[in-house]
C-alpha cells in the first residue's frame, strides 16, 4: 500500500507530511528523552531486520499462496511506540529512495498510514491492553491477528481517503474502499500470523528479549500523538468535504464548471493545487487548450474570445499544437541530456 507521488496532490501530500513531520519530531524527542542509549543501534538493526524479513516468504496455511511480514506491529511490540514509529519511517524512507516504493511527496502519507496507526493507535490502545505483559501463547495469536488487521484496515482507509482527496485518480471513494478493505483484511491476517509466529518464538527462546523492550510513555496512555494524528485527519477530512461540496459535484458538471470559470472562483480557497491551476488558467494563452467536448463549445468560444491574440478556437488545432509542442519539448529535454552526457564522456577522455 505504498502510495506513489503520481497519485497525490501537493495539498494532500503537504498536509499529511506536516502531521508526519510533527510525529517524527515528537517521537525523536521522546526517544532522546528516554535516555536509553541502547535504543539507537537497536532501532537501526531492527529496521534492517524488517527489510530482510520482507524477502522471506512463508506459505499461508490452507491457501497455497505465500506472504511475508510487514513489520509495523512487530516493531511496536519490540521497541515501543516512539522508537517503532521512527524505525518504520526510516524503512519507508529507504524504500522510497532506493526502490521507488512510494514517492517523496507521498512519503508523508505512507509513513502516516503505515507508522502512525500500528505504533500510536493499535499498539497502545489495542495490543497492549489485550495481550498484557504475560505472553500467553493462546492469547498472543488472536490478539496479534486482530491488531494487525485493525492496523492494516486503518492504513488502507488512509490510502483511500488520501487518494480520493488528491483527485488524480477517478476511483470513487466507495468503490475504492470496497476494493481495498477486503484485500487488507487478508493482508492483515497474514501480518498477524507472521507477527505472532516471530514474537511467540522469541518469547519462548529468549523471554528477556521481549521483556527488554523499553516501556515508553505511549503505553501509559499518552494521548498527544493520537491528538496530533486526529487533528491532521480532521484537517484532511475538512478540506475534503469543502472541496467535494464546492468544486467536484460530479464529473460532467465539474467539467462544465471548469470551462465556464465558476469552479475557479469556488476553488480559490482550496490550496496550492487549485491556486496554481488558477494562475495557469489566467495566464495561459489558451486556457484549457485541447479541451473539447460537445456541450462546452459555447463556453470555449467565450473563453477564447477574451484573448488578445485571436487563435482560431478550432480545438483540433490547439490539441495538435499541444501534442507537437509536448513532443518537441520532450525531444529537446532529451537532446540537452544527451548533449551533456556526450560532453561529459568527452571530458573524461
Amino acid at each position, binding site marked *: 500500500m505504498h502510495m506513489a507521488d503520481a497519485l497525490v496532490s501537493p495539498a494532500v501530500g503537504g498536509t499529511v507530511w506536516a502531521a508526519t513531520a510533527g510525529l517524527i519530531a515528537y517521537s525523536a524527542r521522546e526517544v532522546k528523552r528516554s535516555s536509553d542509549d*541502547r535504543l539507537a543501534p537497536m532501532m*537501526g*538493526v531492527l529496521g534492517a531486520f524488517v527489510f530482510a524479513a520482507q524477502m522471506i516468504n512463508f506459505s499461508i496455511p490452507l491457501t497455497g499462496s505465500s506472504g511475508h511480514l510487514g513489520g509495523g506491529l512487530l516493531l511496536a511490540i519490540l521497541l515501543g511506540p516512539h522508537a517503532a514509529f521512527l524505525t518504520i519511517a526510516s524503512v519507508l524512507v529507504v524504500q522510497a529512495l532506493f*526502490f521507488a516504493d512510494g514517492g517523496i511527496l507521498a512519503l508523508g502519507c505512507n509513513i502516516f498510514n503505515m507508522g502512525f496507526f500500528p505504533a500510536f493507535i493499535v499498539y497502545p490502545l489495542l495490543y497492549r491492553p489485550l495481550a498484557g505483559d504475560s505472553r500467553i501463547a493462546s492469547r498472543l495469536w488472536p490478539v496479534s491477528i486482530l491488531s494487525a488487521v485493525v492496523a492494516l484496515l486503518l492504513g488502507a482507509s488512509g490510502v483511500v481517503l488520501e487518494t480520493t482527496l488528491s483527485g488524480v485518480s477517478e476511483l470513487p471513494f466507495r468503490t475504492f474502499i470496497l476494493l481495498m478493505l477486503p484485500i487488507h483484511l487478508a493482508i492483515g491476517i497474514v501480518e498477524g500470523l507472521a507477527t505472532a509466529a516471530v514474537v511467540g518464538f522469541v518469547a519462548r527462546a529468549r523471554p528477556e528479549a521481549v521483556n527488554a523492550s523499553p516501556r515508553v510513555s505511549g503505553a501509559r496512555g499518552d494521548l498527544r500523538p493520537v491528538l496530533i494524528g486526529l487533528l491532521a485527519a480532521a484537517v484532511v477530512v475538512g478540506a475534503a468535504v469543502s472541496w467535494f461540496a464546492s468544486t467536484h459535484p460530479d464529473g460532467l458538471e465539474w467539467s462544465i464548471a471548469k470551462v465556464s470559470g465558476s469552479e475557479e472562483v469556488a476553488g480559490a480557497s482550496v490550496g496550492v493545487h487549485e491556486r496554481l491551476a488558477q494562475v495557469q488558467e489566467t495566464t495561459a494563452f489558451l486556457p484549457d487548450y485541447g*479541451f473539447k467536448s460537445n456541450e462546452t463549445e459555447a463556453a470555449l468560444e467565450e473563453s477564447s474570445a477574451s484573448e488578445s491574440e485571436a487563435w482560431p478556437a478550432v480545438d483540433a488545432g490547439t490539441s495538435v*499544437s*499541444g501534442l507537437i509542442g509536448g513532443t518537441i519539448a520532450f525531444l529537446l529535454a532529451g537532446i540537452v541530456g544527451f548533449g551533456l552526457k556526450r560532453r561529459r564522456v568527452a571530458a573524461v577522455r
Partner: protein
Amino acid sequence: MSIGRWTEVGRMDELARRDSPMHRLDARAKALTTIVFIVVVMSFPRYDIAALMPFFLYPFVLVAVGDLPVGFLFRRILVAAPFAILIGIFNPLLDRTPRLFLGEYAITGGWVSFASILLRFFLTVSAALALIACTGMHRLCAGLERMGLPRVFAAQLLFLYRYLFVVAHEGSRMVRGFELRSYGAGAPRLRVYSSLLGHLLLRSMDRGQGVHRAMLARGFDGEIRVLRGESARPVDFVFFVGWTAFFVAARVWNLADLLGRVVLPGG
C-alpha cells in the same frame, strides 16, 4: 521482494560514490530542488500532458551530468510502476467523456488523465532515483539534518542504511540454507518460518547489542553526531534558484504549447 534487489541497492551506493559536477553539488540544493520539482509536477490539473513535457529536462540533466546509467534507472522505474498503473487504469474505465480530438478520433478524459498519471509517475520517480544516485545516503542525511531533520532520525536512517546490507546478507544465507535442505518444497510452513525469522531477529538483536558495546568502547555518550562536511557554494545556490525559476515558468506558461505554435504555421 526478492534477494536480487539488494545488489541494486549496492549499485546505487556505487553510483553515489562517483564524481561528477552533479555529485559535487550540495546535498541540500539537490534535495530542495527535487522537492520543488515534485510538488510543481503534481500541481498540474489532471488532464495536462503536453505542459508536463518540459519537466523532463530536470531528470534528464541530472542523469546526464551525473553520468548515471540510463538503462539501470529505467528498469528501477519499471519495477515500481505497477501500483500507479493499478490505480490509474480505473480512470479510462470511469471517465468516458471525450476530451481530445485528433482529426476524427476522440480520446476520452480517462485515457488522457491516465497518460498524465504515467508521465507524472515517470517524472517524480526518475527525479527521486537520480537524486539518491548522485548524492548517496550519507550526504543526503547529513544535508537533511542541517535543514532541521531531528538528529535522532538522521542517525536512525544512517544506522538502518549501514546494517541493511549486513542483515540482508544474513537473511539471504538463511534462506539459501533452507532452500538447499528442502528442495522443491516452496515457501516454509508457519512453524518453520517462525523459527527461521525468530533466529534472524535474535541474531539482529545480538548484533544491535554488539554495536552498542562497540560504540561505548569508542566513547559513545548517548549523543549521536552526524558528520557535517559540506558547505554551500554559490553554484549550489544558482542550481536551486535556476531550476526553481524554470519550474515556475513551465508551470505558469505552457511551454510545450508555445513551442508547438511556433513550429506550426498559423497555429
